């Protein structure tokens, strides 16, 4: 891959964001309304709660994306009381397993972003995109359609 292709590949990097309907998605919405700038690399999947996010979703997303962000309400603020607290345990294990098998920590990230944190959402996506663009090319689990 030459330098130009690599640049293009970086611009092309896809980031999937699983955002909970009640907080983080509303936060993203607020970022939009408030006209906070953030890169267009992000593809948002709205989920009812961060507790809905199965680690499988994240691994599957990585078949076709360079990074995945999952974000829900801050602990204590879950619309369903404890969805994000149950999710937190799943995420902890997933994260440590991914680190263990050598996946760069930046590829899979989690956060809690409230409906009021439009600014922080935009900032988060900026940092994330920046981090991801600094990473090497993701092998998509070694799986490519062209074998």
């Amino acid at each position, binding site marked *: 891959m030459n330098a130009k292709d690599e640049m293009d590949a970086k611009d092309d990097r896809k980031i999937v964001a699983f955002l909970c309907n009640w907080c983080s998605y509303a936060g993203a919405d607020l970022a939009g309304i408030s006209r906070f700038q953030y890169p267009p690399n992000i593809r948002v999947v709205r989920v009812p709660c961060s507790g809905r996010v199965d*680690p*499988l979703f994240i*691994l*599957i997303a990585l*078949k076709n994306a360079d990074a995945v962000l999952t974000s829900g309400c801050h*602990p*204590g603020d879950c619309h369903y009381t*404890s969805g994000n*607290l*149950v999710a*937190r*345990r*799943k*995420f*902890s*294990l*997933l*994260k*440590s*397993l*991914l*680190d*263990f*098998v*050598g*996946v*760069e*920590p*930046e590829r*899979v*990230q*989690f*956060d809690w972003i409230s409906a009021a944190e439009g600014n*922080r959402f935009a900032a988060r996506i900026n*940092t*994330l995109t920046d*981090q991801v663009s600094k990473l090497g090319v993701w092998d*998509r*689990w*070694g*799986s490519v359609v062209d*074998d």
Partner: protein
Amino acid sequence: MTDTNTLSKIQEKARRLLEDGKVEVVIGFAAGTVPGKSTPSFISAKEDCESLVWDNGCSLNLAKYVLKEKRKAAIIVKGCDSRSLVNLITENQIKRENLYIIGAACPLSASCAGCQVKVPVIYDELIEDGSEIREVSTIAERRYDDVLEFEKLSAEERKAYVYGEVSKCIRCYACRNVCPACYCKECFAEKSLPQWIGKTTDIGDNLIFHLIRALHVAGRCVDCGSCQRACPMGVNLRLLNHKLLMEVGSLYQFEAGLKEDQILPLNTYQYDDPQPFLAKGGGHE
């Protein structure tokens, strides 16, 4: 170690249960046809109890069979089988009262490294052989040497190793099918609507299968090692299980299948649970 005394006590107990009509079937092991492998046996005639064995070949976790057993059954268990039964009871997959548990200390001569639960934790009758009975409530402090060694490698080396391991996988699902913690009616790996992963042995699909398999049994795995023994391709499955056993131990001070009143760690939460993923993921706070 084949202890003839233990064996005859097991056989006697099985015979008595069948004779008294307490159970219709005894699930145990009989001699296998391959060296070092005893074979699961379903005994319903008391005369057949003599065919039961309790030896080095009894490594399979028999708890798996209780899931599909419709008859009133007795099961002969070692430490890890009994822990799987505890899990299945707490997960409402089986009813304790439908099952007669004959416990005996693990007969494997080369037992699993670090195993501290050789003697069953749950039983109706324990065949005593003088083994030390440990009162175990938590063994979360247990170290997994394979994990610690592996973590000394660089991320690239770790990734290369894991990719190499899963690329051996032929997707026979033996690891899943022997695992007593795997009892979904329809496994995500075989689901068609949606089809999460492909049916080929494409390395990515293999990898996702093994990572999710490990995560699905996290907090429930009793480290019986059946998955690894079953794998015909020698995939180092236990490494992933060990990592998660260690994590569950250190994050939630939990190890599965030790107490009947256990609450499985992924079915619950604490407000002040650690959030290591935030720091590692470059998050705030």
